[in-house]
């Protein structure tokens, strides 16, 4: 909060001749439609969920009892929540680092002397525009134990022993769901890094060469520092995004086999719409949302600051 207040306090001089004054009623007429929609369909429901999380509501009955923190106590003891939280963490780490590193590597390659740059760029970003359900379908189909292309490929190259039900067994299910996530999330860092790399002045490299810097030193001391804003955006947005994981898991494994691939989002869904524990389900959603908000606040603050300069 202090950061916010300092951000609020800092006002840069504006090139506006009149003394600073507020826009008054007309400004609000512009703001109200979007703000009303935002409050009614996002802020209010989110706060209502917070309220439900203190009740034993089943999601159907007209009445419910307030049970205080009971749901949260149950969350802490729920072994599936432990699995889900661990999966969320693994998911975040893997689907953040792998796509970012691969995206950076691809961007550096593409920024060199490469032919067919536009088409290559097009290919790498394509998965990102597909509906997650279709990505789940495509990969579910590739993973099919009997007719899937992946097992077929393994058999063709003589690795029959490695052919297995990728999505159907505990040992591989989570990894198998993360592969499509990596497939679809590598394009965005690549695009950002490519744009950032193209913005680095050539003179910096020339100067480094004159000073006798090796390629590796150039990468460490010229490229990486120049990419700082890109790193920041890529990591912040990937992080924010990773908390929202739902569609892929829901459509590929539905949290299974058993509860092996449950994440907070899907476990919340199961509790609300399958077991009719709306109070408990919303408590799970509240937990993950609070974590997401806390982690993202520095990014939101920096955006607010930048946008008010």
């Amino acid at each position, binding site marked *: 909060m202090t950061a916010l207040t300092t951000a609020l306090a800092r006002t840069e001089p504006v*090139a506006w001749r009149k003394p600073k004054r507020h*826009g008054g009623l007309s*400004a*609000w007429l*512009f703001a109200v439609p*979007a703000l009303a*929609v*935002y409050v*009614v*369909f*996002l802020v209010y*429901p*989110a706060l209502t*969920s917070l309220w439900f999380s203190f009740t034993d509501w089943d999601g159907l009955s007209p009445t419910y009892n307030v049970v205080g923190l009971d749901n949260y106590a149950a969350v802490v003891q729920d072994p599936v929540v432990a699995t889900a939280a661990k999966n969320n963490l693994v998911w975040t780490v893997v689907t953040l680092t792998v796509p970012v590193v691969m995206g950076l590597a*691809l961007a550096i*390659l*593409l920024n060199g*002397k490469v*032919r067919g740059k536009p088409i*290559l760029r097009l*290919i790498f*970003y*394509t998965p*990102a*525009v*597909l*509906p*997650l*359900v279709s990505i789940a379908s*495509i*990969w579910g*189909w590739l993973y*099919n134990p009997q007719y899937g*292309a992946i097992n*077929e*490929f393994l058999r*063709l190259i003589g690795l029959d022993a490695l052919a297995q039900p990728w999505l159907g067994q505990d040992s591989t299910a989570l990894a198998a769901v993360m592969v499509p996530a990596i497939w*679809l999330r590598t394009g965005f860092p690549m*695009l*950002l890094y490519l744009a950032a790399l*193209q*913005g680095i002045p050539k003179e910096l490299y020339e100067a480094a060469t004159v000073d006798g810097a090796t390629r590796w030193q150039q990468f460490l001391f010229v490229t990486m520092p120049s990419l700082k*804003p890109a790193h920041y*955006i890529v990591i912040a*947005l990937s992080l*924010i995004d990773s908390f*929202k994981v*739902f*569609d892929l898991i829901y*459509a590929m494994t539905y949290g299974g086999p058993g509860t092996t691939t449950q994440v907070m989002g899907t476990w919340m869904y199961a509790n609300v719409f399958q077991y009719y524990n709306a109070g408990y389900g*919303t408590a799970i959603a509240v937990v993950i*949302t609070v974590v*997401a*908000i806390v982690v*993202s606040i520095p990014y*939101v603050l920096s955006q*607010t600051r*930048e*946008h*008010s300069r």
Partner: protein
Amino acid sequence: MTSIAPVAALPEAVVSTGPAAPDTKKPAKGGLVTTAIVAVVALVWIAPLALLVVTAVRPLSDFISTGPLAWPKDFTLSNFADAWRIGNFASTYRNSLILVLLKVPLGVLISAMLAFALAKLRIRFGRVIMFSVFLGLTIPIYITIVPIFIMLRTAGATDSLIGLMGPYLAFGIPFEVLVLQSFFRQVPDEIIEAAKIDGANSWRIFFTIMLPLSAPALVTVGILDAVSTWNELLFALILLNSDNSKTIPVGLLNFQGQFANNNTGLAAGILIAVVPILIAYTLLQRYIVGGLTAGATKG
């Protein structure tokens, strides 16, 4: 809303992005090795989609007898006809299109209005509003799902596309405001001052100066919004239950279950669902890439 999410933004440097990339036209001499490496990776990347296309145009019997990786002996288009009919794509397509056509322009308009108030009208509590709206980027959709379901059931708006409009608009607003606000800020105050002296009020300035000057940003935001609206699953899954009101992602989900044993039909169905978005992306990628990368180049 979904994962392409967006991003990004902060097109602070958009205006100056141009001259930075003077793609040298020198014939790439040492580029063959790099090109080969990237091409191999690209091949792996596109393989699932390529395989999908090949599978969609072969008969099921051919697929089963020679396996998923063999080059087809026969080609057919009947998978598409089957998938189209059984997957009820006529109605899911219609519904998704209606949603996008209603939601995107309206969402961009109200977001642009708010962004204008924040960027140029010195609205009171501007920074608090911005902070609260940007915070929306971080809120997972699923925390709102129960109250929204109840709200819409009370209003009798479940199972209707109109019912989806509210939540879809709300979850689109943070990103749209983020991007549009930075574009609007770059419009010089002098232009607005001059218009004011000529007697233009805020609405006139908004519609005749801000929007036309920010057309590229509006297009980018509109496209990204259309993609996430087209792809959204969770709200649609919970709020729509009759077959006639389902959208593409929900329809595809059901379809996936029905076609579990018909691999070629499933491939055709998936293609039917993604082709419009692939075409739109290929044609409009310039705007998408520009919008997504705008923030990366400053500093």
